[in-house]
């Protein structure tokens, strides 16, 4: 089971996200994360999907997505030729015992403390999903109150998902 990231360029219309996620349900694809947002052209949105599977699962996912009428293009974001980032907000207990360790780890991970209150503090980290995972592992013993990850976004370095 390999991890792969797929970018889907879709028309920015009502119901398109439902069509895409509905496809995952009925074809039995299990995805790890999905993000969606507007692109440089407001008529289109970009969906980034990360999932685990074999080569066959990946090919089926791409080919089934391409069949959706509102989907204009689908590309795999190859690890070597693309940039991938994810963002996490993680809220931790603010206690005298853990505070300094949280702040030290934040420093190492180039994270930002974006909220500091008597009971909790909140850290923002951006990076590749593996870095996010590592940061979570470090934070676990320090009392995570709640957290929210965006899921991966990715762009290729030297080409675009549609011809420009």
């Amino acid at each position, binding site marked *: 089971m390999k991890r792969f990231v797929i970018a889907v360029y879709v028309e920015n219309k*009502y*119901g398109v996200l*439902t*069509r895409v996620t*509905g496809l995952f349900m*009925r074809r039995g694809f299990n995805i790890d994360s999905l993000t969606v947002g507007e692109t440089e052209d407001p008529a289109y949105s970009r969906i980034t999907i990360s999932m685990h599977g074999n080569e*066959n699962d990946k*090919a*089926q996912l791409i*080919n*089934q997505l*391409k*069949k*959706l*009428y*509102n989907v204009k293009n689908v590309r795999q974001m190859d690890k070597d030729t693309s940039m991938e980032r994810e963002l996490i907000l993680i809220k931790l207990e603010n206690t005298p015992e853990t505070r300094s360790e949280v702040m030290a780890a934040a420093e190492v991970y180039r994270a930002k403390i974006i909220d500091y209150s008597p009971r909790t503090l909140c850290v923002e980290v951006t990076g590749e999903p593996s870095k996010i995972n590592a940061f979570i592992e470090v934070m676990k013993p320090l009392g995570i109150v709640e957290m929210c990850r965006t899921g991966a976004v990715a762009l290729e370095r030297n080409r675009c998902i549609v011809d420009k």
Partner: protein
Amino acid sequence: MQKQEGKQMPGAQILIETLIEQGVTDVFGYPGGQVLNIYDELYKASDRIRHYLTAHEQGAAHAADGYSRATGKVGVVIATSGPGATNLVTGIATAMMDSVPMVAITGNVPTSLIGRDSFQEINITGITLPITKHNYFVTDVNELADTIREAFQLAKSGRPGVVLVDIPKDVQTAMGTYLPQDIVPFAEEEEVPDAEIDQAVELINEAQRPYIYIGGGAAGEGMSDMIRALAEKIDGYVGCTFMGLSALPNSYERFLGMEGMHGQYASSMANKDADLIIGVGVRFSDRATGNTEKYAKGAKIIQLDTDISEINKNIQVELGLVGNIVSSFKRILDRCEKKEHPEWRETVEAFKAEGKRIRDKEEETAGPALTPKKMFDVINAVKDADTVIATDVGQHQMWTAQYVDFERTRRFASSGGLGTMGYGLGAAIGAQIGSGDRTVLITGDGSFGMNLNELATAVTYNVPVVIIIMDNGVLGMVRQWQTLFYGKRYSNTVLGRKTDFVKLAEAFGAEGCRVWTLEEFRTAFETAMQHNGPYVIDAMIDKDEFVLPMLPPGGSIDDIITSREEAEE
């Protein structure tokens, strides 16, 4: 060219004008509150477009489907919002699973009432999302005409399917601009690169035991002749999936018929022994392959399909050719070498002989009563090349697949993928109306019971459809499984009904008769085939007839069951 000014008209009229512009001459449907305006325009345009009123929206959807299968045209069905729309669902799914081009039009409550659980409001685009190729919810009357045009394009191009257009009532009444347009040619399907065609040709040239395996995607223009030409040229044989039936005449000596769970012995064996399988518009469904681990282990597979997602979906293939099937096939046919494979011929001829022996043995043991095989002998003898055969789902459907001799393309309407009981009568009516040819519905007492209300439709429009009910008083296919795999515990498959199908036919205003013997059946069928209007033949058969041969579910050709005794061991 003269510049044309658009005409102002209400949305409902734009819809009808666009349907006519798209070449639609017949639509099936059922009126209701949210399509009143559409029906008003249908009334006004009744000299240019015919509407057939069915007894139930499901019947209308199946009729549009049967119409399409028999003609190759896009079937059109109209229903109102809410229950009208939900009643289409089974019909839409049935057509979609078999890649039948169809456009479904539904009315909906006015946009101001959407999302308020208004009377007869339903989110039909949401409901049909997984069972349509695409669907639309129209909110602007000026987008209606283009949406309908796009719907027809989509339904028919590439791998055909169902497109639904949901039109709220205020869009039907709003005034918009209609500008007639010529039908735009379909976006060209991609052509398979030359290198890949050459690869396929190389594999074919190397093959010693080639086998062409055709499915629903092999019904394209000129395919029937080309498939035969290729079989001759490479000295191979042809088998088919359920959906591939009627693509080739059964009389063609290299055609081995359907393979799979209830397929012919010869085609299943040839598939197993082949060293090269050329799949044409097939999707290697579970009913066709059985256990995929054991499927065609000794063969390389070339797969031609218009839908890229079918390649390697169920079976890993050596080479997938994605693009226009007709042109790829023609290029392969032109380029491959003429071959002789006497050993392969000998092998397959032996399979054919064994297949015939199995079938004859069945017949000997059958005795003097009315048996399916004998009934189909009569049907084949009396029908002509143009007769359309429709079926419902169950044992009678598999007997039809095994025994009917098709003579030309587009003469078969049956629910292969979804397996919809109750499909047949609506489909038969649609197929007859579309083709203008006499249609024979082969059904069972179970399936017929599901949607027999459409007899009313057949009578209203005096549709010459011959309905043969293979009446055994049980749900035969499920019973067969209960016999074989559930210790003969016949849970809810013994109908024990007192329905008199002859009186029922009469009550609907149709003719009917009941037969017990082969001679009675022959006479009745000959009469029915001459009858001007619907005719019901209630043919009494034994409840313990089996569909054989049978490959048990998840099994392979090695597990083939060829006789009852073998089955019950």
